């Protein structure tokens, strides 16, 4: 792959990436969240089209790649999120791509024979008639791998394949990868876990901000060399003037909160007048903590305290009553009513708190006008449907609806995701004003370590569903936090 570029909605994600893979090699691709790893692999497997650049497989240039032509060229992907059919059996899943191609009647005997063979290749014993939807995650992962192998892969792309696997299953997977290498298959392996890279990789390529930083043999890929490459220029810790915490008043406390399958034993305290950062890699369990706090999902164990008193938050409505506000990660799907106007979105939360059931158009207009001007929301009118706003302005509308409802604690989940630099700065200053000037509190969840360092007063690091470390943004570095994120991500004991 040479000079691959790709932009989404004008935002360049890949800015000329070069990547090569030898026969029988395992090439590890590493980089921060958002460095462009997954995008690059989706281009190679035909899921996205590239803007420019060339892809050559076995000396032949591949012009336009679709998932089908990529598969024909022997490029097979194993995705993080599964592409299996939950309602079909194991055997049917293993045979489905052939069903689509051959358009014949299904021959069950052959289907089962093929499925058995595919599973035998990775030494994976499972009931062929089991419904895939009922399988645990790890078995689905193994099945996904078996499926990929049954398609005669020449190039196999694996994106964090061990994230859900136990150590025994991981071992089996590594053995399989070693066998594949011997039989001449090239493996592209995306991972954050430096220790496992050493076990299976031959070369490591580091990607940062959509460019290739460098490729080195795996023997040279120590954390001390790789992490600086991932980060680039070491940023000076932002010397921010930390206002003294207001008498240490505890606004919100979590005690030993657990939610099976998402996180375990999370305890943290949010003080008045501070921004508390919660960071970690994708899948560390940060979002789930926010969801439990806001009553979207229920914790199995543990307590939530507000102002020192234990509270039970069983729905967003209750959370709202306690003065919590939540800006979810996925703005369009969960944060906004896209069909509705700017004004209607801004007043929605306040309306739920209103004592009577009538609408007062003047009251609504005043509230919306105030929010639009104080948050500098750029919209042609208050009636403009929110779906036509830019990402930054959508995010500001979400802020506006909670700020107008006078909430005391804001839970922000990736509040600057997909937002341009200008709007980002505005959102940072909003957060600063809310927590530090107005003496409220913010739980700031983000996997962008730079921004966590820049915006927060204290940092908690999460990995594999647990809080593993605390840090002060003035005393730590990005390198240190990234190391914590990556090393904390161990296999779950299986």
């Amino acid at each position, binding site marked *: 792959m040479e000079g691959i570029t790709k932009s989404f909605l004008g935002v360049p994600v890949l800015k000329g990436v070069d990547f090569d893979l030898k026969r029988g090699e395992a090439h590890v691709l590493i980089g921060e969240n958002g460095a462009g790893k997954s995008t690059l692999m989706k281009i190679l497997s035909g899921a996205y089209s590239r803007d420019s650049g060339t892809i050559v497989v076995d000396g032949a240039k591949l012009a336009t790649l679709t998932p089908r032509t990529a598969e024909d060229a022997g490029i097979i992907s194993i995705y993080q999120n599964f592409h299996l059919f939950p309602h079909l059996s194991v055997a049917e899943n293993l045979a489905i791509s052939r069903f689509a191609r051959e358009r014949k009647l299904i021959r069950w005997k052959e289907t089962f024979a093929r499925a058995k063979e595919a599973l035998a290749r990775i030494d994976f014993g499972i009931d062929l008639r089991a419904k895939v939807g009922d399988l645990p995650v790890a078995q689905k992962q193994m099945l996904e791998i078996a499926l990929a192998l049954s398609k005669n892969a020449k190039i196999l792309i694996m994106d964090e394949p061990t994230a859900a696997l136990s150590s025994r299953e991981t071992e089996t997977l590594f053995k399989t990868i070693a066998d594949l290498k011997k039989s001449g298959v090239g493996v592209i392996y995306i991972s954050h876990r430096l220790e496992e890279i050493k076990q299976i990789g031959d070369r490591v390529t580091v990607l940062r901000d959509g460019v290739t930083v460098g490729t080195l043999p795996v023997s040279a890929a120590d954390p001390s060399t790789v992490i600086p490459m991932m980060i680039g220029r070491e940023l000076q810790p932002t010397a921010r003037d930390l206002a003294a915490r207001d008498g240490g008043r505890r606004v919100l406390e979590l005690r030993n909160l657990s939610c099976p399958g998402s996180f375990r034993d999370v305890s943290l305290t949010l003080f008045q007048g501070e921004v508390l950062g919660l960071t970690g890699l994708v899948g560390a369990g940060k979002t789930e903590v926010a969801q439990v706090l*806001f009553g*979207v999902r229920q914790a199995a164990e543990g307590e939530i305290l507000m102002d020192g008193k234990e509270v039970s938050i069983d*729905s*967003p*409505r209750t*959370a*709202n*009553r306690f003065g919590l506000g*939540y800006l*979810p990660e996925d703005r369009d*799907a*969960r*944060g*906004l*009513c*896209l*069909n*509705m106007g700017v004004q*209607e979105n801004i007043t*929605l*939360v306040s*309306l*739920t*708190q*209103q004592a*009577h*059931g*009538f*609408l007062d*158009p003047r009251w609504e207009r005043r509230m919306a006008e105030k929010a639009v001007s104080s948050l500098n929301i750029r919209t042609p009118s208050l009636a403009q449907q929110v779906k036509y706003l830019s990402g930054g302005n959508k995010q500001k509308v979400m802020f506006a*609806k909670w700020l107008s409802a006078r909430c005391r604690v804001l839970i922000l989940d990736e509040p600057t995701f997909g937002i341009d630099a200008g709007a980002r700065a505005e959102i940072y200053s909003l957060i600063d004003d809310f927590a530090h000037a107005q003496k409220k509190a913010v739980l700031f969840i983000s996997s962008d370590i730079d921004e966590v360092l820049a915006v927060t007063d204290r940092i908690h690091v999460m990995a594999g569903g647990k809080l593993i470390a605390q840090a002060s943004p003035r005393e730590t570095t990005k390198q240190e936090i990234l190391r914590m994120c990556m090393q904390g991500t161990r296999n779950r004991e299986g």
Partner: protein
Amino acid sequence: MEQASVTKARSISQQVGMVASLAKNQVLSMLLILILTWIVLAFLSPYFFTVRNLFEITLQSSVFAIIAAGETFVIFSGGIDLSVGSVFAFSSIVGGIFYAATGSVFLAVVTCLATGIAAGIVNGLFISSLNVPPFVATLGMMGIARGAALIAVNGIPIYGLSPTFMWIGQGQVAGLIPVPTIIMAAIFVLAYLVLNYSRFGRFTYAIGSNLESARLSGVSVAGITLGIYALSGMTAALAGIIESARLGTVQPAGGSGYELLAIGAVVIGGTSLFGGEGNIIGTLIGALLVTTIRNGLNILGVYAFWQYVVNGLIIVLAVAIDQVKNRR
């Protein structure tokens, strides 16, 4: 130079915006189609464009237009209520039984409306608390309410409604305006106010636009859903009273197929079947349009069974047009 091009670009975008909003404004385009239909029919039949016939159209519309008013809330919120035709029958049977026992029109009306509301609440409970999809929950209620109506009277219609009762369906105000027309107008004014000036209406909109974000904003989704289906049950029951009064009998088999007429009127009026988009005035125009076409076909002597075909075509076309517009 630059200034001029900016201004020009802006005026072009304004023009594009206006054309788009005109096309988007289904109410206006449906109103135009309605008037056009009237003009065409007026040329085809001298009888059509008479004051009497125009009021006749509103009278014929009133029953399922009132059902459609409640259905608008349901569809606006992203749901669907298939049970309205059966709830219509069951409620009026309950009202009729009370009337036959007591002779009180007031009691008949109250019990009828209460039955409709109760059926709606059952729908709402299944949908919001037990997560049964609206299509399934109301399909079940469609069967249950119909069966209950037939069982309650052994399939035999209730006769002998008093002139007072029948005035609701047959009376005229000022010797010209049918009472059902007036009830219909009142319902639509009310529905308009609720939809646009009450919190309930706004939350209905929010749920239809994005249920998850409405929930996260603290909207009591379960409560609003219950209210929406209760409202739909109530309007179905009210329509049942009017039809019983018009016919002078209460029919346990009445109202079958009205759910399609009502949903058709809502959809033709520009309310999206996917929720979060729509308006009540459009529903009224939709109901009038459906009736006008039926009325016109009648006057022109088209075989009555063809009306079902025409109805079906209108519904499918209305949704297809909506889809094409949204794709752009």
